[in-house]
């Protein structure tokens, strides 16, 4: 009787074994224990409340800022979608910062905390494998982070009131935040196991996280004097989680709203994520590859570090497995970075002509059945090809830009009374250097031009030159539905945004300031003194 029962039990357990084995491996005792402790007591609720209150307050501030700053620029209220996007970007970056700065504190005590509480020996004397200990600690810590990320979701759903954000964007952002949390969490655990002191581990983890966020820019600025205009190598740029997030958020027009400046500062310009058409792949894909590889490597090493004995004695099978994993990671990085190895990772700004389709010879296949004549169908009407818009002429570009450029430059030079200057006697001379295609459909062009700008005043019938400046500009123009070219945005010269020909042109034929000055004087004289 008893034997029968044990036999039955054995059968039952066998059928359950696979599922229960998987579940018991995923949900390990440490996760259950940590989660029991984490939400107990007032701490968790205080932190969560403070976090959400802070986030809510900052979102509101961002909302006000968006409204006022937009109205300040243009005099009209922003479009609803613009507000939605700005809020979403702002929230995404705030949560990213929270993740970057909270994760290390959660995992840096994972191993060292056990040691300090003197529970580590007891934990190690159980049959738990090092990997399960790490997994349990990691999941428990990440639960917290994911709770913070998910707690922000209702807040970010405010965005849907304004619109402008797709569900895909939200999923992408959560994915990147999760990746950052896992990577920095692993980093914290690695140092926790290495130093066995929570304080030290926290400091080291923060240092590395800081290096990831700011290191690339500092290194690049340090090694290149600003303005050389080269793009930061993507190997360096991709380390920053901020750059990665920005590259995932950026709109095809290349705007990030008011929060764009932050990411621009941190990855040394918008080149890396400016326009999807110009990159082989968005920056965040490089980041994902690097972070994934780093995480796996950290886990491999940490799993050895938490072992009490026989740390590095693995046996040939163990070494082979680890070698295989490392090779796999190297392969992964190779595939991601190798696709554009030896280039900057940026495409040239001029659109590449589409390769002509090569005719594929169709093999004649013997047909085994009878061919029946069908009534000839009328062929579908061939779609009339949409003509590509003709690019604007340099004169058009100059006309379009003149008012904007003068106003904005004056605003920058003399913020106090630019309006008076602008109305009184600010003049600018534009010289278009190049107009090149930008988008494949030809609906967007990039114009490179020189600007020479100066304020004049008339005193006693004499022309007095005031402040002025000359600088190269890059303007982006688009072709709207009404068949008109419109100014999208313009940037102060960044050499890497110019096509190689224009760059060459700039070097060989620098702008002739004397000529520009003469032209301006002529116009100023005409306008201010009424002389012909």
């Amino acid at each position, binding site marked *: 009787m008893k034997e029968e029962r044990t036999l039955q039990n054995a059968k039952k357990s066998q059928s359950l074994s696979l599922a229960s084995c998987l579940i*018991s491996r995923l949900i*390990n*005792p*440490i996760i*259950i*224990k940590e989660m*029991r*402790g984490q939400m*107990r*007591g007032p701490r968790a609720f205080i932190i969560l409340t403070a976090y959400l209150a802070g986030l809510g307050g900052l979102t509101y501030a961002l909302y006000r800022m968006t409204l006022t700053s937009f109205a300040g620029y243009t005099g009209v209220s922003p479009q609803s979608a613009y507000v939605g996007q700005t809020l979403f970007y702002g929230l995404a970056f705030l949560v990213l910062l929270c993740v970057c700065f909270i994760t290390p504190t959660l995992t840096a005590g994972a191993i060292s905390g*056990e040691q300090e*509480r*003197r*529970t*580590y*020996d*007891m*934990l*190690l*004397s*159980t*049959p*738990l*494998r090092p990997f399960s200990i790490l997994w349990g600690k990691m999941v428990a810590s990440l639960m917290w982070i994911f709770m913070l990320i998910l707690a922000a979701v209702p807040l970010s759903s405010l965005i849907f009131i304004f619109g402008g954000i797709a569900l895909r964007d939200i999923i992408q952002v959560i994915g990147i935040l999760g990746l950052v949390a896992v990577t920095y969490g692993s980093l914290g655990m690695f140092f926790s196991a290495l130093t066995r002191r929570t304080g030290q581990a926290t400091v080291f983890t923060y240092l590395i996280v800081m290096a990831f966020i700011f290191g690339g820019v500092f290194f690049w600025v340090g090694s290149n004097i600003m303005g050389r205009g080269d793009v930061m190598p993507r190997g360096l740029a991709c380390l920053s989680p901020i750059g990665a997030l920005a590259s995932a958020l950026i709109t095809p027009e290349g705007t990030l709203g008011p929060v764009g400046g932050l990411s621009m500062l941190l990855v040394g310009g918008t080149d890396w994520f400016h326009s999807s058409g110009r990159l082989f792949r968005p920056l965040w894909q490089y980041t994902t590859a690097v972070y994934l590889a780093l995480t796996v490597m950290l886990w491999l090493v940490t799993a050895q570090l938490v072992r*009490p*004995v*026989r740390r590095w004695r693995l046996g040939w099978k163990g070494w082979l497995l680890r070698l295989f994993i490392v090779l796999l990671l190297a392969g992964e990085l190779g595939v991601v970075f190798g696709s554009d190895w030896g280039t900057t990772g940026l495409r040239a700004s001029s659109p590449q002509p589409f390769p002509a389709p090569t005719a594929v010879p169709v093999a004649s296949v013997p047909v085994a059945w009878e061919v029946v004549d069908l009534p000839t169908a009328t062929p579908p009407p061939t779609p009339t090809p949409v003509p590509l818009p003709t690019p604007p002429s340099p004169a058009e570009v100059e006309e379009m830009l003149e008012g904007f450029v003068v106003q904005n430059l004056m605003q920058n030079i003399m913020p106090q009374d630019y309006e008076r200057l602008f109305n009184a006697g600010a003049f600018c001379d534009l010289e278009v250097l190049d107009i090149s295609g930008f988008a494949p459909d030809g609906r967007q062009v990039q114009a490179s031009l020189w600007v020479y700008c100066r304020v004049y005043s008339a005193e006693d019938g004499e022309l007095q030159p005031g402040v002025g400046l000359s600088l190269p500009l890059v303007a982006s123009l688009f072709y709207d539905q009404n068949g008109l070219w419109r100014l999208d945005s313009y940037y102060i010269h960044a050499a890497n945004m110019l096509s190689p020909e224009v760059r060459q042109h700039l070097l060989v034929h620098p702008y002739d300031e004397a000529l520009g000055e003469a032209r301006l004087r002529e116009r100023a004289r005409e306008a201010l003194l009424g002389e012909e």
Partner: protein
Amino acid sequence: MNEFVVETRGLCKRYRRGAPLALDSLDLRVSRGALFGFIGPNGAGKTTTLRMLAGLLEPSSGEIWIAGHSVNRQPHLVHNYVGYMPDFFGLYHEMTAWEYLDFFARCHGLTPRRRRIVTGELLELVGLAQKRDEDVGHLSRGMQQRLCLARALVHDPLVLLLDEPASGLDPRARVEMRELLRELSAMGKTIILSSHILSELAEICTEVGIIERGRMVACGPLSWLRGQAVAGRILRLHVISDVQRATQLLTGFPGVSGVAQVNGGNDPAETWVEAYLAGDARAASELLAYLVDNGVAVAEFRQVGNELEELFLQLTAGEVA
């Protein structure tokens, strides 16, 4: 090898290159069901040995077998046979006594049904059934120590390794711990415990190993150890009548190597005589009879110091310089 549950051969541990040996070729054999007391002063290498037995520390050389499995070669297998209680037991905060045991039962992979039974039984065994839902941090130290012992028992191990189970406990808690250990021993567990305090736990041990500066000085059943030691004791007498005469008589008694007059007792005027007698209990009784026969009025006659402590001091005297 089956006869001995725990066996070590030439076990050495050196913590750092160039540091002195923390443990010097230790050969230990503990038979099944034994209650082995590991006794030595602080820093003698007791914790080192126990940690190595538990597979938490790597020996510099030498081998350990537990239940026939080599700790050196299969360290993770040993965890199923060994319940280890560290000297400074750790506690997780924000956890109840029941959850604490449940956590370790989960770590050992017990089924939910088994876990429920074991948790209840162990709390009952260590007398904490009432404190089941109490926060671990709020328990008294004795209770925490007992809970920690229960923790080491969740997977019903063959061998219990207890590092200083009585340290930091008040006398009552010590007695309770001693009773608990007796009970466990009666249940058939092999127990290895370490202690720097002799009197507390040594009495219940079936075997005692005295360790000093990483070296096993003496090892065997307590009775055998007693025989090994030079039988000598300090006798203290309260003599009412003639102290001078008593001193003379004592000095003349065979086996007495030293006599001294001391002040003792509650009254400083009382005179006591102390005599060091090299001999066993029979010699002491003969000495008393001799004194009484010769007309010395002895009001009190007692032996000074603990027998085991004397033994311990004797055995380690040469080493501690």
